[in-house]
């Protein structure tokens, strides 16, 4: 089927729909429903049938539909009454339209006077309008390839070539062929509405240029000082000299067809040197005639070159005064804020505000706006997970790169290196998608503080710092409860009553500062108050009372401070309904640990308390060291590892309680043999084993003894709790390159129960 046939098929399909609709409408009309919408629908349907018929040259149908439509138009605006007669004419005519359509479809000729009666009736109602409903209907669906970009020469549309030889010249006031030195002079002074209708002189000149060698000069004498500059104002006009043979005034006027009435247009044939013409402009230069050709010189686009040969003899001397359109375009195009109207002005008054309403091209305006899409978080997470797996695969590949491979397959190695880089980049990019400013959780806190003020009678001001710091969305979601507890704690236990503050020489109003900042691979979120600080004596007594610490145990100030996070601990002498009943601060710890973070508290008596959360930037990927214990793989988060050493090089000793300690740089570090701790037996001799020195929260160290150190890699954290439960000393699981599961050692968790053992 040819394209034309396809269109015809579409058309006939559409016609049958329209005819069915028309019938329905006419029946309703016949029943007395003369609703305007109905008439409009009828009118449109006939109009559509006519339009398509015109395109395919079904002349009988066009003629009939046209007359029908004309009459309907009269009915529509009330010039003809929708009488019974008219209705019945319409219904009959509708059938006739169907006949015409059918005939056109089947290629059948109808009698020439088919429907003559109705045609006559139409004319009776609507009068003899025009007998030529349409011009010619020759339609050719030969695809035309036309450059639409502005970089290349726009090809002249072939069929419409204005300088067609056979075209009769209707303007015989001027000779067709300009002689030597003869050229067209065009002056365009746009009105504001030219721009309001989205026309653009630049484009008109571009089209004009197709007619010949056009030299264009922007006249800026009316450009006001910057202060008076109205971005919507019209200050510019253009003069064009067009050297072209075979160009009639009509050809030129046709270019300006769409702006007729929206501008002042002068088209004149002139004689004499083009140079002389432009001399005038040159004299105006000091008065503000912009010389767009400054750097453009005589470079013309290839499009004009041919014709330039005819006219350039004269134009050689005006370097710097005039410029071909190509230069003008080059001036304007790269700057999206400059347009044909303001473009010339852009040079003189480059600080002129952009003209949003008249931007020549809508595209730049749109790209400058930040575009967003809403995406289901689940989809993002799927990407995050897959990137995580990719990271693992990549690190597995990297692991396989031994020296032999490196020497032998350099290309492969390079490829793996590039892969590593790209994977990192991809990972960062994906993480950035999930990142959100902490503001979303911070913003809930002012309200909390207001409520606390009301409840406690204290005067507390909340200050927030760094609320634009971004962090993984999942972490943000986990932050709300801990922050609430911490702020409550500060308000309840930290900030003193106003009278006490005054007595202590502090301002009546207490301050709680909530801050967030990025520090390396972590986000630090702190709640800091200027209250009384932690009452260590009371905390310690209470802890002893509750059996959290033993009576004889000596604790450092820091250790006492950390007790506020101990489970079941509450310092409020009278349990208040604000900080709760000893549930709260330990919830903070468990929540934060769950997302791989840690909590620190530092207090200065009389000055205040700072509680600090250290959180990972992302939950998805963890840098770890892969170790082996009794043949089972474990991973230790790299962030907690201080150093690793061979056991044979390490100095061990016996601690006071008979436990093994590691002596490292003058420090005694408690040793945990992971094999023992995890209830396994290892056959690796002690001297061949390794020590992984880790730093737990609060700077305390612990030495983990393992059988083997395999290497470093990145892993994706997988939950054990999803299908099982939490296990002491284990922070989660991960999947190694070979598909097996390795457990993530929870350094803090390993250390904690031991301390409690000693405490008990």
């Amino acid at each position, binding site marked *: 089927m040819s*394209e034309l046939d*396809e*269109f015809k098929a*579409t058309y006939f399909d*559409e016609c049958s729909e329209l005819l069915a609709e028309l019938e329905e409408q006419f029946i309703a009309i016949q029943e007395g429903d003369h609703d305007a919408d109905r008439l*409009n629908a009828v*009118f*449109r349907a006939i*109009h*559509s049938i006519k*339009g*398509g018929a*015109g*395109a395919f040259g079904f002349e009988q149908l066009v003629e009939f539909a046209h007359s029908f439509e004309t009459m309907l138009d009269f009915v529509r605006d009330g010039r003809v009454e929708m009488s019974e007669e008219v209705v019945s004419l319409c219904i009959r005519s509708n059938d006739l339209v169907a006949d015409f359509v059918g005939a056109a479809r089947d290629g059948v000729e109808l009698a020439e006077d088919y429907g003559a009666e109705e045609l006559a009736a139409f004319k009776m109602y609507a009068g003899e309008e*025009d007998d030529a*409903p*349409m*011009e010619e*209907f020759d*339609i*050719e*669906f*030969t*695809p*035309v*390839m*036309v450059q*639409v*970009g*502005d970089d290349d020469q*726009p090809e*002249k*549309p*072939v*069929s*419409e070539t204005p300088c067609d030889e056979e075209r009769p010249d209707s303007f015989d006031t001027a000779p067709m062929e300009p002689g030597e030195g003869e050229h067209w002079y065009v002056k365009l002074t746009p009105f504001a509405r030219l*721009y*309001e*209708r*989205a*026309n*653009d002189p*630049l*484009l*008109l000149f*571009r*089209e004009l240029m197709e007619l010949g060698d056009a030299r264009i000069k922007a006249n800026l004498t009316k450009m006001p000082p910057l202060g008076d500059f109205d971005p919507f104002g019209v200050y510019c006009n253009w003069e064009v000299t067009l050297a072209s043979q075979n160009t009639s005034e009509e050809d030129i006027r046709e*270019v300006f*067809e*769409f702006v007729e009435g929206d501008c002042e247009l002068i088209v004149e044939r002139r004689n004499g040197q083009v140079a002389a013409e432009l001399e005038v402009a040159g004299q105006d230069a000091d008065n503000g005639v912009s010389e767009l050709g400054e750097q453009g010189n005589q470079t013309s686009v290839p499009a004009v070159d041919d014709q330039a040969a005819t006219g350039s003899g004269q134009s050689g001397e005006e370097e710097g005064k005039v410029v071909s359109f190509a230069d003008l375009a080059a001036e304007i195009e790269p700057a999206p804020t400059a347009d044909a109207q303001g473009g010339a002005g852009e040079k003189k008054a480059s600080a002129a505000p952009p003209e*949003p*309403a*008249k*931007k*020549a*091209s*809508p*595209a730049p*305006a*749109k790209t400058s706006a930040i575009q967003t899409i809403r995406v289901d978080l689940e989809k993002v997470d799927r990407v995050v997970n897959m990137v995580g797996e990719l990271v693992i695969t990549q690190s597995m590949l990297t692991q396989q790169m031994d020296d032999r491979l490196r020497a032998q397959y350099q290309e492969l190695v390079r490829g793996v290196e590039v892969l590593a880089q790209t994977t990192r980049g991809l990972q960062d990019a994906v993480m950035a998608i999930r990142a959100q400013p902490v503001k979303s959780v911070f913003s809930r806190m002012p309200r909390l503080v207001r409520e606390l003020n009301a409840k406690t009678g204290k005067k507390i001001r909340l200050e927030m710092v760094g609320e634009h710091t971004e962090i993984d969305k999942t972490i943000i979601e986990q932050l709300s409860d801990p922050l609430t507890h911490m702020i409550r704690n500060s308000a309840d236990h930290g900030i003193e009553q106003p009278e006490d503050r005054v007595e202590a020489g502090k301002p009546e109003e207490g301050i709680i500062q909530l801050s967030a900042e990025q520090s390396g691979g972590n986000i630090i979120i702190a709640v800091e108050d200027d209250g009384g600080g932690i009452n260590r004596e009371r905390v310690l007594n209470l802890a002893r009372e509750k059996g959290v610490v033993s009576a004889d145990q000596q604790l450092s100030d820091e250790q006492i401070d950390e007790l506020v996070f101990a489970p079941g601990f509450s310092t409020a002498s009278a349990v208040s309904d604000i900080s709760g009943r000893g549930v709260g601060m330990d919830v903070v710890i468990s929540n934060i640990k769950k997302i791989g973070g840690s909590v620190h508290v530092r207090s200065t008596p009389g000055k205040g308390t700072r509680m600090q959360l250290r959180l990972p930037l992302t939950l998805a990927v963890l840098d770890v060291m892969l170790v082996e214990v009794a043949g089972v793989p474990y991973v230790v988060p790299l962030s907690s590892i201080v150093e690793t050493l061979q056991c044979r090089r390490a100095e061990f000793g016996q601690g006071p309680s008979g436990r093994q300690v590691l002596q490292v740089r003058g420090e005694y570090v408690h040793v945990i043999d992971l094999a023992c701790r995890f209830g396994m037996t290892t056959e690796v001799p002690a001297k061949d084993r390794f020590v992984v020195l880790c730093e737990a929260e609060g700077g305390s160290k612990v030495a983990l003894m393992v059988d083997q150190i395999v290497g470093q890699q990145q892993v994706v954290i997988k939950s054990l709790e999803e299908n099982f439960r939490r296990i002491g000393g284990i922070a989660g699981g991960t999947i190694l390159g070979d598909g097996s599961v390795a457990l993530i050692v929870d350094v803090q968790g390993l250390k904690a129960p031991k301390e409690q053992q000693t405490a008990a």
Partner: protein
Amino acid sequence: MRVLTVDDSRTILAMLEHTLKAAGFEVLQAMDGQQGLDVLAGSDVDVVITDINMPVMDGIEFIRNVRAKGEHQSLPILILTTETSQEKRDQGRSAGGTGWIVKPFDPAKLVSVINRVVH
């Protein structure tokens, strides 16, 4: 380069699509002015070709609506019309139409007219 064509006739839309695609344009379609506005709200368009007589929202109304939106003040809009009378065309221009195309359109003419109004 992306063209939004708005016409209630599927035939015209199909022909426009064919011609424009052959000339290297990307073509979006709408069957009335309201749909046209919806398309504009969701896509970047470089030029609009619209019919005048359409249900729901006619072309004049459509153009007026497009121009009322700041972001589309400089979007070229070509009126596609079979009207031989000057009247519709002038209405379209007053509403903010940039130029016009007379149906039935000649493919080459169509493309050259688009070039006259689009960068």
